[in-house]
């Protein structure tokens, strides 16, 4: 089994390197941009995937997405900090901290109550942001020019390539680490908790603590994704970062991707981004129709998400940890 896990790590490495090379040498800028946005969101979806395997769906992870995004933006605006080695860890930590505190409450709830409790918390943040002039209110504000080790650039193409490579690197690292995590003892307490909390307790582990840990992990990853999204888009506002529709998109991409693999969110998220773009070009006022229709098709015909198609094509069976 150690062999399988190494193969997945290898597969992830080959995949991300291939995307990075294609991006630098082949792909047009508009597609690079799409991948950048898609992979930023995918980081959050990896977090939701861990929760989903534990049997939990959150309709409010825009809370952490927004926290990450605003942490990056505020560090720039209030302290002039654009260094990504500061802003991105800060975004991750801020979300993890809030996730840790709220985790004491949400870990007591399951199913629809868990989903809705998260939604409620995210709406509180949305309300605060909209009402607070100092935080940019409904308009939001711009994000400081990002730098890496103090180096920045005004050349849009160079900046795009750099950000693209950055999101590939962080995406790869996240996927590899979360894959390792899912193969650990604690990682097995995802599906195990979903299947039977009583047995988990009577094996000597607290199901609530297991859920709490996974919740913090999902919050941290979502914060990281939100932080990257803020840098990618160059601006934050409540509507595009914290609104409940953002939570909905995250859940949408989670279902589209399927729980089968940590690589799935990156593929699913890109499909979502392309789908939305083309749907918008096709029918500007009813693109939701196409996106919604796709979701229905997935739910009815592909409950394992796009990953189930890929793994079937590759001749593999079942869900791999």
């Amino acid at each position: 089994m150690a062999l399988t896990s190494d193969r997945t790590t290898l597969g992830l490495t080959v995949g991300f390197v291939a995307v990075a090379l294609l991006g630098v040498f082949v792909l047009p800028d508009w597609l690079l941009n799409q991948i950048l946005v898609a992979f930023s969101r995918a980081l959050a979806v990896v977090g939701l995937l861990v929760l989903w395997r534990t049997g939990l769906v959150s309709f409010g992870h825009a809370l952490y997405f927004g926290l990450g995004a605003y942490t990056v933006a505020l560090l720039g605006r209030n302290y002039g900090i654009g260094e990504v080695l500061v802003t991105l860890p800060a975004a991750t930590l801020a979300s993890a901290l809030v996730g840790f505190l709220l985790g004491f409450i949400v870990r007591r709830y399951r199913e629809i109550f868990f989903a809705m409790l998260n939604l409620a918390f995210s709406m509180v943040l949305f309300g605060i942001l909209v009402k607070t002039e100092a935080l940019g209110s409904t308009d939001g504000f711009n994000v400081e020019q990002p730098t890496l080790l103090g180096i920045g650039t005004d050349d849009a193409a160079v900046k795009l390539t750099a950000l693209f490579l950055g999101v590939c690197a962080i995406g790869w690292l996240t996927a590899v680490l979360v894959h390792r995590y899912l193969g650990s003892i604690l990682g097995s307490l995802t599906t195990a908790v979903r299947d039977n909390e009583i047995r988990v307790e009577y094996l000597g582990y607290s199901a609530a603590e297991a859920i709490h840990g996974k919740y913090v992990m999902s919050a941290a990853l979502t914060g990281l994704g939100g932080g990257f999204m803020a840098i990618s888009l160059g601006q934050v506002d409540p509507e595009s970062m914290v609104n409940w529709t953002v939570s909905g998109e995250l859940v949408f991409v989670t279902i589209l991707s399927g729980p089968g693999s940590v690589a799935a969110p990156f593929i699913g998220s890109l499909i979502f981004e392309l789908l939305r773009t083309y749907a918008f070009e096709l029918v500007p006022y009813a693109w939701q129709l196409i996106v919604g229709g796709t979701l229905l098709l997935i739910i009815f015909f592909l409950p394992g998400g796009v990953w189930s198609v890929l793994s079937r094509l590759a001749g593999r069976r079942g869900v791999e940890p």
Partner: protein
Amino acid sequence: MSAILETVGVNKTFGAVTAARDINVSVAKHEIVGIIGANGAGKTTFVNMVTGWLPPSTGRIRFDGRDITGLAPRKITRLGICRSFQVAQVFMTATVFDNLMIALGIADAHGLGVLLPLRVRAREERADAILRRYQMQDYRDQPASTLPQGIRKLLDIAMAMVAQPKVLLLDEPTSGISVEEKFPLMDIVMGALKEEGVTVLFVEHDMEIVSRYVSRVLAFYQGEIICDAPPAEALADPKVKEFVIGDDLHNQTLLQAGALQDGAQEVSDARG
């Protein structure tokens, strides 16, 4: 002999219902104790209190000289008391093998050790050894949801034994299992348990099984222990005859049929 498990003046009330009344039991190491009683007599409540699912209303529970009253199930499990359930509690979507792997993983993990890989060769070999000991090799790669009732209960017991507890409580290991399958199943279970030298308390409705495997009987009636004696003596006790077994074969059959209904109720109790 020193007591490994002891309850002192334990009471449990649910509103107006008294499910346990002044329970004083002392179990010595390596004893095999049978717990009998009609439905609603308080057998599961006793198991639930000892394993931490329910705190007693009053009284103390001691394990190995240590007061464990009111501790959480996972703490009690870590101390060395494990249990099986009237309705098997296993990971339904996982295979039999993976059920055991997860159980072994949790038992092995301390502190940051939970972050170590689950699937390591040594652990896989232990899981396979358990499969052999409980004669479940044929079901190794089958999801637990597809198992026959008897095998699922066997898995439930095997998982409870993974942590190598000092005391094991089995709540109706043979309920929901056909008469022909009961003895083979109990032979496997008791054989494995004796090998490990664990102290066993098991709830059972079938007096044939009780008299075959246990060295001591606790008879419950309306939350009270009405008899605590070796099986031959207990089964001849007039009170046990009247309140537990009934005085003819017909009642005994009814009793066993009732045991199955009791099983359905247990899930909602334990989960509620």
